[in-house]
C-alpha cells in the first residue's frame, strides 16, 4: 500500500506538464464552450421571435465568433459532434442539396427541434444557417414561409447542440483528460497521452487553416477557387482564419509555461499578413497580387505551426504519429 507521502511525491513529479493540460481546459476550452452556449442561446431566442435575416445576422456573427475559439477541436465529444455544427468543406454540395430537398418537400421536421437533430448533418449548424441568412437563393423569404420555419429550426438545433457538446466536455471528457493514466481510463493510458492529444489539436487546427481555409480558395495559380472559400457568403473567411489561429496560439500559450519567442513572433507576423488582405471573403484571388497576399497569410499560418512544433512539441518530446503519418 502506498503511503500518503509516496503518493504525494508521485503527483509532484507528474504535475508540471500535466498542470498545463488542466490550464488549457480551465482557461480556454471549458469557458469558451460556455460562451458558445450563451451565444447560440441568444441566436435561438431571437430566431424564435423573428426569422428576418437582417435582424439575425449580428447574433449569427457573435455565435460563429464564439465557436471559433473551440470549433477546431476534434477530440472527445467534438470528434464527430463538431461536424453537425460545422459541416465544411462541403465538396459534394450536401448543404444546399439537403436544404433544397427539405424546402421542396416542406418537410414537417422543422416543427420539432428535437426531430431536427435527425436531419442530415449537412443541413444543420452554421453553414446551413449561413445559406438561409445570406444566400439569396434561400434568404429571400417571408415570415409565414417554410424557409422562415427552417431558419428557426436550424438556430434552435444549433443551440441544443451547443448545450450538449459543452456539457459533454465539462461533465465527461474533461474528466477523461484529467484522469489520464488511471486504471479505468481506456482513452488515455498515461498523462503524456492526454497532453499529446491536446497538443495535437493545436497543430491540426493550424494545418486545417492552412490547407483548407486558405488552400481551398487558393486552388492552383491557373485555377483559383473563390467559391470554395469558407463562410464566403457571410464574408467571414478571413475572420475565421484569424480567430482559429488566435485560438491555437492561445491554447499553445496555456500549454507552455516557458517563453516561446518564435511562436509569439510568428503570431504577430500572421496578424500583419491578415491586415493586408483586402477582401474578407477571398473573392479577389484571381488577381495575382491578391493571391500573393493570401499565400503570404498561408505561409504565416504554417510558420506559426512550425514555431509551436519547435518550441512546444520539441520541449514536450512529442513527434508525429507512428502509423497515422505512414500508412499502408
Amino acid at each position, binding site marked *: 500500500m502506498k503511503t500518503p507521502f509516496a503518493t504525494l511525491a508521485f503527483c509532484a513529479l507528474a504535475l508540471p506538464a500535466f498542470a498545463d493540460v488542466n490550464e488549457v481546459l480551465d482557461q480556454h476550452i471549458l469557458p469558451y464552450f460556455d460562451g458558445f452556449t450563451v451565444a447560440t442561446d441568444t441566436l435561438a431566442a431571437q430566431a424564435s421571435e423573428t426569422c428576418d435575416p437582417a435582424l439575425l445576422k449580428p447574433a449569427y456573427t457573435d455565435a460563429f465568433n464564439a465557436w471559433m475559439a473551440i470549433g477546431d477541436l476534434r477530440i*472527445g465529444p467534438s470528434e*464527430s459532434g463538431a461536424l*453537425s455544427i460545422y459541416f465544411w468543406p462541403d*465538396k459534394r454540395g450536401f448543404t444546399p442539396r439537403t436544404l433544397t430537398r427539405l424546402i421542396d418537400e416542406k418537410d414537417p421536421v422543422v416543427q420539432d427541434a428535437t426531430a431536427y437533430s435527425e436531419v442530415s448533418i449537412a443541413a444543420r449548424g452554421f453553414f446551413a444557417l449561413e445559406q438561409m441568412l445570406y444566400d439569396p437563393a434561400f434568404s429571400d423569404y417571408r415570415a409565414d414561409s417554410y424557409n422562415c420555419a427552417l431558419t428557426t429550426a436550424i438556430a434552435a438545433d444549433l443551440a441544443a447542440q451547443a448545450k450538449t457538446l459543452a456539457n459533454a466536455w465539462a461533465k465527461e471528457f474533461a474528466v477523461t483528460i484529467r484522469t489520464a493514466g488511471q486504471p479505468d481510463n481506456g*482513452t488515455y493510458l498515461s498523462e503524456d497521452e492526454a497532453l*499529446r492529444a491536446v497538443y495535437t489539436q493545436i497543430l491540426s487546427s493550424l494545418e486545417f487553416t492552412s490547407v483548407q481555409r486558405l488552400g481551398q480558395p487558393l486552388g492552383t495559380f491557373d485555377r483559383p477557387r473563390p467559391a470554395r472559400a469558407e463562410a464566403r457568403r457571410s464574408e467571414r473567411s478571413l475572420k475565421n482564419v484569424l480567430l482559429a489561429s488566435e485560438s491555437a496560439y492561445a491554447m499553445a500559450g496555456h500549454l507552455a509555461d516557458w517563453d516561446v519567442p518564435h511562436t509569439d513572433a510568428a503570431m504577430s507576423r500572421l496578424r500583419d499578413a491578415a491586415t493586408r488582405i483586402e477582401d474578407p471573403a477571398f473573392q479577389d484571388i484571381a488577381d495575382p497580387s491578391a493571391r500573393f497576399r493570401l499565400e503570404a497569410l498561408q505561409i504565416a499560418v504554417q510558420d506559426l505551426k512550425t514555431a509551436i512544433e519547435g518550441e512546444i512539441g520539441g520541449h514536450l518530446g512529442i513527434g508525429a*504519429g*507512428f*502509423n497515422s503519418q505512414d*500508412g499502408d
Partner: protein
Amino acid sequence: MTTRRGFIASLLAASATPTIGWADVGNPSYIAAARIPDGTFALFGIAGDGSTRFQVPLPARGHAGAGHPHRAEAVAFARRPGSFALVIDCFTGQVLHELTPPEGRQFNGHGVFIDDGAVLVTSEQASSDSQGIIGVWDVAAGYKRMHEMPTFGIGPHDMHLMPDGQTLVIANGGIATDPSDRTKLNIPTMRPNLTYLALDGSIRDKLELEPDLSKNSIRHLALRADGRVGFAMQWQGENDMAMPLLGLHRMGEAPVLASAPLADELVMQGYAGSVAFSGANQSEIAITSPRGGRIHRFDEKGTFLGAVSRTDVCGLAPLTGGFLASDGLGGLIAVTDGKPHALARENCAWDNHIVTL
C-alpha cells in the same frame, strides 16, 4: 521387443528433435512488429491478456507477418517496397532464413502459410509495372522459391487462405508505384479488385466495385469461418468524400458496402488500416483508422454499431468477446461491447498490424 529403457530412450530422442512449438515461446496468440525506444525494430509475441511473450530483433521496420501453424517460426515482412522477409525462430530470436524476392520483384508486406505450413506464399509485385505476383516458397527445402503466379491485379497487398484451405483471397490494391519508393503512378486510372485463386493459380472469382469506387484501394482482409470476407479500403480520391471503407463479400455473391453515419465517416479520413471479425459467432467486424484515431464496428450485415477513439490506432485482431487493437503509443486495447479497456501499454510503437496465430 521394445524394452522399457529403449522406449524411454526413443521418447527422449523424439522430444530432443529441434522442433520448437508455440508452447515453447509462451503460447502467444498474436505476433506484431514495433519500434522500440532505442529506435530499432522488433517482433513481439503477444498473449490474449496483452502480455508480451517474446521479443526478437528486426533489422528494419516491419509491416505484417505470418506465423507457421505449428513451429514457433514467424515470417516478418518489411514494409513495402520490401526487399526482404525474415524467417525468425521465435525461441532463439535467430534469423533462420532471409528471403529475398527474385530480380524484378518486390515484397508487398503480407504473406501466409498454406498446405499446413509446407508452403509459404508471399504478396509481391513486378517492380517494372506493379503487376501482382504470388511468390510460392518451399518451406521444408529451407524456403526455396518454387514458382510464382499472377494475382490478376495491380499492387496486391493483403492475402489470406480461405477456410477451405484450397483458395487464396488477394486484395489487389490497384495502385501502381514507382519501383524505388511509394510514389503512386496511376491514381486516375486505378482499378482495384478482390481476387480468389485456387492454389494452382486458376481464378475462382473476381470482384470489382462500381466505377465511382475505383479510387477505393482494397488493401486489407479479414476472414470468417464460413467464408465471408471483410475488406478494408483506403480512398485515393479527393479528401472529405466520406466513402465507405469496409466491404463484406462471399465468393460468387454481390458485395455489401458498410458506411458509418456521415459525421463518423468523415472522422476516418478515408483510410482504414486493419480489419477483423470478432464477437459472438464472429458477428461483428471492425476497421481501424490511424489517421482518424478511430475503431469503427459494424454488424455482419454492414450496419454501423459504434466508434471507439484511440490515438494512432491501427493493428486489429479478434479477441475473445471483442477485438484487440494496437497503436503507435504502445497501447494494447481490448474492445468489448464497444468499450475500450487497456490491457497493456508497452514502451514501443506498434506497427500497422497484429497477426493472429
